[in-house]
């Protein structure tokens, strides 16, 4: 994939300031149960249904770490090429808020799960990889939700989400443009999807992004004062928010003013950032190791097992697809966007033996059908084996290409096998001369003028007549044979 160009593009950058961005990405792990209790992580349950003494912070309750959450976090850390620490420590981040039942969040602070990784976001036009440093990956729990608009004059609290496991992935301040930030997020989302550790949906809140943004004069090595930008709910929102904050900082610096270290909130509707209300003393979280949880000690052999069982990651898959299926750069990028699509394609290609045809169908008909219905490919009614069979039928001349599209449309609705559909709706190609002659006779009888002109040697009418025969046969007639039969009549 191609990284966005590193040349300055915006007016601010053109004025000489360089943008420096680091991203903090919170990802909800797709465990069945919460990080420190056995409550379900189901999204969309009635308020406060998925709660227990532990996640309600009832007096006397204690956390117990979810081994599956540790496993998924480790998987993500390894895929991000981090060093997984043999010992990491859970810490308490203390602050008062009604949706934080314990009055502290269990997280990891000075001894995180993993450190020192990187994520490849593409390549320069010359082909050199562009990699963004990953400072750390750590495990923490989510807070609940405060609902301010449900009851007049009161705030309601839903603690279903309280205690859901998250990983926080912190990047180095290596990003130099909003577009690079977008590329980083897309690469990260793709990687996490391949790892199957998260649903990675910004809309459902299973992926959340905060951006640390600063600006510095050209040639400056020191980082400028940064602000933290929050409240973005899409990747494009992140890009726009970063751009807006950078512009604000550049304007301040250009006027000779200082950037104040603070939290900014993105307003996607108005397209601008504004300072968050700062809470007094809110930045002193009084971190200390959580005495309820022993240090997390990971057996190096166990970590190696996780590493060994990592699935094929996006870069590796793209390289392999290009080599194994002789596909071009564009096809490979598109097919590998999500692991489910790549799996689907690969299954079709293996059974049909013509990868290019498989690729065209997956990127064309399949994607269109999925977009129209809004269902994920994993629930698509046309299974790869059935699509492969349909393509085989085209290749073998059993159905025409246009009939195949009609058959596919029926398969999308019914989930039936292509032979059954072709048989049922009579779309199997007809090559039988008697039947074809019958259709030809009918067409000529219905169009006497054209029939006469054709008989008198007007050869260019042959195409029109073949079309009429195809139409009469509902696409079933074998056009090659129709041509031959018509030609025989004209010369006879």
């Amino acid at each position, binding site marked *: 994939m191609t990284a966005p160009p590193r040349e300055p593009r915006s007016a601010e950058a053109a004025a000489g300031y360089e943008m420096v961005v680091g991203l903090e990405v919170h990802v909800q792990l797709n465990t069945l149960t919460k990080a420190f209790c056995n409550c379900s992580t189901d999204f969309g349950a009635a308020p406060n249904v998925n709660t227990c003494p532990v996640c309600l912070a009832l*007096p006397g309750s204690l956390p117990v770490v979810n081994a599956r959450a540790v496993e998924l976090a480790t998987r993500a850390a390894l895929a991000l090429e981090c060093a997984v620490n043999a010992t990491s420590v859970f810490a308490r981040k203390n602050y008062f808020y009604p949706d934080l039942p314990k009055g502290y969040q269990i997280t990891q602070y000075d001894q995180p799960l993993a450190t020192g990784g990187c994520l490849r976001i593409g390549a320069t036009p010359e082909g050199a990889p562009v990699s963004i440093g990953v400072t750390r990956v750590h495990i923490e729990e989510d807070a609940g939700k405060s609902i301010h608009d449900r009851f007049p004059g009161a705030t309601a609290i839903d603690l279903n989400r309280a205690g859901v496991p998250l990983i926080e992935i912190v990047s180095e301040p290596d990003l130099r443009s909003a577009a690079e930030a977008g590329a980083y997020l897309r690469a990260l989302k793709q990687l996490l999807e391949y790892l199957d550790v998260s649903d990675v949906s910004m809309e459902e809140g299973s992926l959340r992004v905060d951006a640390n943004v600063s600006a510095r004069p050209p040639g400056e090595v020191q980082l400028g004062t940064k602000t933290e930008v929050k409240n973005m709910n899409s990747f494009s929102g992140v890009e726009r928010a970063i751009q807006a904050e950078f512009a604000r900082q550049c304007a301040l610096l250009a006027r000779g003013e200082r950037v104040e270290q603070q939290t900014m909130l993105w307003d996607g509707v108005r397209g601008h950032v504004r300072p968050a209300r700062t809470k007094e003393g809110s930045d002193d979280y009084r971190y200390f190791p959580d005495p309820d949880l022993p240090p997390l000690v990971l057996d190096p052999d166990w970590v190696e097992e996780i590493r060994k069982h990592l699935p094929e990651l996006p870069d590796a898959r793209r390289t392999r697809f290009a080599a194994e299926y002789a596909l071009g750069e564009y096809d490979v990028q598109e097919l590998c966007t999500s692991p489910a699509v790549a799996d689907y394609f690969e299954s079709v290609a293996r059974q049909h033996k013509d990868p290019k045809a498989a690729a065209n169908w997956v990127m064309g008909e399949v994607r269109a059908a999925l977009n129209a219905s809004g269902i994920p490919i994993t629930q698509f009614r046309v299974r790869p084996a059935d699509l492969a069979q349909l393509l085989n039928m085209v290749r073998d001349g059993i159905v025409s290409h246009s009939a195949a599209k009609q058959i596919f449309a029926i398969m999308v609705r019914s989930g039936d096998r292509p032979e059954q559909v072709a048989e049922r709706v009579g779309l199997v190609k007809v090559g039988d001369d008697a039947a074809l002659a019958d259709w030809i006779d009918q067409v000529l009888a219905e169009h006497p003028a054209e029939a006469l002109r054709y008989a008198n040697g007007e050869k260019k009418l042959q195409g029109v007549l073949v079309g009429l025969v195809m139409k009469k046969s509902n696409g079933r007639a074998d056009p090659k044979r129709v041509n031959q039969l018509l030609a025989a009549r004209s010369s006879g």
Partner: protein
Amino acid sequence: MTRDVLGMGVTHFRDAVAANELRVTEAVDASFVRAGEVGAGRDGLNAILWSDEEASHREAAALSKRVERSVGARPTHGSGTELLGVPVAVKDNIATLTLPTTCGSRILGGYVSPFEATVVSRLRAAGAVVVAKTNMDEFAMGSSTENSAYGPTRNPLDRTRVPGGSSGGSAAAVAAGVVRVALGSETGGSVRQPAAFCGIVGVKPTYGRVSRYGLVAFASSLDQVGVFGATVDDAAAVMEVIAGRDVLDSTTPPEPAVPPYRAAAHESVQGLVVGRPKEYFPSSLDPRIRERCDRALHVLEGLGATVKEVSLKHTDLAIPVYYIVAPAEASSNLARFDGARYGLRVHGDGLRGMYEATRSAGFGPEVTRRILLGTYVLSAGYYDAYYKKAQEVRALIAGDFASVFAGRVDVLFTPTTPTPAFPLGAKSDPYEMYLSDIFTATANLAGVPAMSVPIGRVDGLPVGGQLIANHFREDTMFRAAYALERALGQEAHR
């Protein structure tokens, strides 16, 4: 013929019930009679905060099915009959299903837990009946049970004096003969010190030996459920039931297995090496307490044990370290009492106003002091100087114990407290109160097991001797304690 059922050891009583010689409800009913007697009047003990006589009687009566099954059967671990019909008092910071769990605080006034502590479940599974929730210093912060929102508890042996604390209600209930056994909790001596003041046995297990699930946290790295018994055997019988791995508490290791404490206690102390740490016998120690301790050591020597002078040289740092670590953890543990979900809520101006009003009205002065202290020592810029430094010194204190136990010492013997029970209201200076834990806080900081046993009296007031063992060696500790108890006999209570 009426028998003094509360005068019987718990296993003796249990055997009589299982043999159908006594009704299963007998001890529970007797507890309520006795509680009525000692609680009555202007100088009533005020040991019990919450109880429900009818419910407890019903619970005991329902055990009759287990009696039928248990006739002739041995009370093996997990049989459900180890403590058949035994009434138990439980400190009010341990969650029970029907009685309130208030931690002696206004902020949890009327709070009833929807779940039960693991220790309570295990007691009930063994056939015991919780008959009372006992008074305590608010959130276990104190050494006299005077810091309760529900009034102080009096010492049954001298009602002008404190029973010690923070588990003073449980200690007083056992000492007054309301129950033979009770649960308390320890953070810096809250079981051993009141046991010493009330002339009974008090055990603080190894950190992690007993589940904390359902124990309302004060300082999580120091807290441990403890046991009071009228005798060593009573306490050991309860420990056998409650000790061991609990999947709901990550700090309880599965290994080593829980040994049979009662049987271990009965083994000889011949050849046992008893360390006498000199830092626990300062020149300022009350000479009468020193004399009692020397007498106890002499008795152990007479039974074949060897007494060896040892040194735990960081002992004097225990109180300063304790008063950094414990408040720091408490400041975080008590953040959940914010008026949002349960307990007291006092309305104020906005969210912050509600927090301030609720917590100001709900917490007493000692709890407030410790939350402020703990918040301060964890603050940015002070963490390294206080909390981190304290943890480093704590490691030195633990190291002191590790080296004496590595040097062939089996158990340490010290006085439990520097003085006998003091009069109610005598210690108004918090720092003076803190010093009454000077000999006990070390075991919590090091995580080692320790217990107090009666070793005699001074001016009619009980004196406790403390036994400290290596991690998970409660068996050795019980062995020394039982030998001492038998050899001293009535001398321990004179």
